[in-house]
């Protein structure tokens, strides 16, 4: 019954929006520029974009142009493009966790979207996103983001490991804890010559935080708080989310982590100069040179099949961070979102184009999969099948549309091992909680100075703790904590706690 009412309401909204839509003046042909992160593709993207533009021209008299922010120095380039916009961009792919959406909103990079605008120019999106989700896209009462809230995905991190080697190591049910991970690594160390148990790429700026956060969510019920810029701030637990955790300032857990990782480093689970290593771990795993890769669930779903081709029988499993504590948070709906540029000359048409990208089956499938019959066919289950010898990087289409994917229009790949993937998703769904801090938009201006210094301290100490490159773990953690205090962690925690309290009326 509830669903029926929802459906009726949706219909009504669409019907109400229709006449308004008819009045939109689209007599002038415009180009809508879409800013997106990713390398300029060498495949058939341009050709497919041409087809998409034919449809867009016919429907809303607009065409889409893509401005790529290539992965080299992407954070700098992306933020610079927003800061220096002058009507040259219209639609911007953004995210509150990995693309600084809130700070960019606070700095005035995006156009506030009124309900009337959304109802008129993006009626399908407006109807599809529930009211409570629009609430999570507001800053100072105004909507700035159109969330990717109708797409199930998991990007929580963990370890990809080889199921065949785990079995050999006596782990019949695979790796399910850090202790078992150690057994697995030790087995590889002892039995596989020329294989580095985990050839970690310790030079990246995100590697150590992911691993450190993984230990933390596996050993405590703490919940990560997004959007502060330094990974030092967690909530206590799903039962007490609005009290900040003191993990980084006191307690034994961080010392245990440092001690354990030193043990692992000394045992040689990764290379001696891990902190300067920049290799491609996934490629090494495919070549059989390493036994694990630390990345997220979505990587595992794809690579499990690829690994089966490159290393037959590898049966790649995924040990997710937080498993021991059943501590997993569903992805925030603004992990991907579309925004309209502050200086866009045609915000109305930009919204119309976005509405079609997200909801028009023909455009959506062109964008996500390419040309049917030529680049893919559907099998009897409705799963997508690529032609023989398919190579996505030269033959596919890459629009990197991560800002409004739509499960109603998604096609499942026939290649993916859905049995394994669905089993893991079911495991997540059974224990997940929704991201508890969606309503807080932090105003960090008063503590930014301290956060910057904390960022330096964190990035100085944490890589060494994470990869066990210390002589005396306990003493090193003590020194780290002392430095955090000196850099102002208490002031920051107090302010962040205050803002959380304010947002949730505590």
């Amino acid at each position, binding site marked *: 019954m509830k669903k029926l009412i929802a459906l009726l309401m949706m219909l009504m909204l669409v019907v109400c929006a229709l006449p308004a839509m008819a009045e939109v003046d689209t007599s002038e042909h415009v180009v809508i520029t879409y800013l997106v992160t990713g390398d300029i593709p060498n495949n058939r993207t341009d050709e497919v974009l041409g087809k998409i533009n034919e449809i867009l021209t016919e429907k809303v008299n607009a065409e889409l142009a893509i401005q790529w922010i290539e992965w080299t120095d992407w954070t700098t380039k992306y933020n610079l493009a927003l800061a220096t*916009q002058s009507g040259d961009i219209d639609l911007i792919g953004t995210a509150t966790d990995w693309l600084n959406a809130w700070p960019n909103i606070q700095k005035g990079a995006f156009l506030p979207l009124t309900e009337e605008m959304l109802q008129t120019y993006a009626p399908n999106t407006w109807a599809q996103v529930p009211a409570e989700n629009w609430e999570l896209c507001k800053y100072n009462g105004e909507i700035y983001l159109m969330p990717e809230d109708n797409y199930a995905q998991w990007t929580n991190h963990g370890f990809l490991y080889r199921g065949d080697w785990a079995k050999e190591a006596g782990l019949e049910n695979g790796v399910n804890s850090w202790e078992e991970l150690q057994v697995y690594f030790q087995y590889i160390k002892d039995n596989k010559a020329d294989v580095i148990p985990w050839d970690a790429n310790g030079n990246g700026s995100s590697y150590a935080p992911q691993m450190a956060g993984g230990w933390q969510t596996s050993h405590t019920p703490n919940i990560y708080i997004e959007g502060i810029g330094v990974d030092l701030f967690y909530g206590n637990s799903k039962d007490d989310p609005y009290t900040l955790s003191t993990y980084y300032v006191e307690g034994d857990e961080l010392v245990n982590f440092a001690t354990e990782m030193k043990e692992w480093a000394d045992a040689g689970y990764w290379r001696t100069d891990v902190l300067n290593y920049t290799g491609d771990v996934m490629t090494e795993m495919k070549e059989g040179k390493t036994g694990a890769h630390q990345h997220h669930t979505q990587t595992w779903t794809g690579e499990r099949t690829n690994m089966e081709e490159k290393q037959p029988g590898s049966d790649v499993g995924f040990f997710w961070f937080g498993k021991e504590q059943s501590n997993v948070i569903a992805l925030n709906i603004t992990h991907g979102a579309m925004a309209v540029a502050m200086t866009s000359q045609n915000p109305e048409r930009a919204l119309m184009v976005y509405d079609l990208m997200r909801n028009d089956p023909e455009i959506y499938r062109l964008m996500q999969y390419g040309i049917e019959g030529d680049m893919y066919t559907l099998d009897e289950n409705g799963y997508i099948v690529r032609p023989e010898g398919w190579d996505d990087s030269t033959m596919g289409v890459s629009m990197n549309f991560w800002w409004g994917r739509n499960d109603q229009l998604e096609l499942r790949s026939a290649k993916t091992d859905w049995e394994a993937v669905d089993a893991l998703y079911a495991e997540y769904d059974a224990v997940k909680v929704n991201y508890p801090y969606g309503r807080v938009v932090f105003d960090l201006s008063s503590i930014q100075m301290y956060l910057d210094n904390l960022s330096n301290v964190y990035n*100085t100490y944490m890589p060494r703790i994470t990869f066990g490159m210390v002589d005396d773990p306990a003493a090193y953690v003590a020194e780290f904590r002392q430095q955090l205090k000196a850099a102002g962690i208490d002031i920051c925690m107090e302010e962040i706690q205050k803002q959380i309290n304010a947002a949730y009326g505590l």
Partner: protein
Amino acid sequence: MDKTKAVKYQRPSLARTLNQNKTLILMCVPAIIFFFVFSYMPMPGAYIAFTNFQYNKGIFGSPFIGLQNFKFLFMSGQLTLLLRNTILYNLAFIILGNVLQLTFAILLNEVQSKAYKKTTQSMMFLPYFISDVLVSLLVYNLLNYDFGFISNLVRNLGGEMPKVYQMPNAWPIIIVLVNLWKGTGYGTVVYFAAITGMDSSMMEAAQIDGANGFQRIRYITLPTLKPTVIILFLFAIGGILKGNFGLFYNLVGANSMLFNTTDIIETYVYRSMMNSFNFSQSSAVGLFQSVVGFFIVMAANAFVKHLDPEYALF
């Protein structure tokens, strides 16, 4: 006007000077345009360092917040270390770099075979074009403890390889060596050009008078190069607070075991602000470096002027 006074020396009028040197000026135009567009036009933008920059309001519409943006660098407690490292590295680069470049330029000049000269010059120039990312990979593949080329060599010879990536004291040497390897070829060409531009009659006269090779270098080449050396030195010293981020960041990366001897202002700023993207704060750091550099150049120039006005920049 009293016409008798004009008998002395009369400064030629601007129009006349321009007219007389029009070819030279024409040749300078691209450089003048370059510096105007990339150095002078953006200068008012330095105001961003004193604002809380809002994208939608622009640099000059954003609220003025005084020296707030400069604060974080000073309250970090790291500034002394950062200044020490940045300045010492730059001094090493400038002094050792110039000595090497001069030496190679003079040596090249003494070589008679044209083919040899050209090949050497090209080979020396090449590292200048290799990106820091590749350089860091090269260094890693030479020095890393487990699989490095040198490590394997040492082990095969029965030696014990030190863990270079855990030795902070080794890195000033490595970084200076890498920098010299990259920059010497380029600088050599500059000095070599200066030598080629020398008046050859002096050399010939010295030769006739029986001066040997060393004497010619000591008494003719080096003194003639003195102004070039001083000018290049004065230029270089203005950037003494600016570090080569690409080089340091790629060689050292996340390895904080080495920070004590390798952390420079740029890498520190990167580590502090990689998640906050505060354009105002990073501009504040840049402005601080430039202003200090400006005063150092002025002081150095005044010093040179005091010694010998001929050699001063202005």
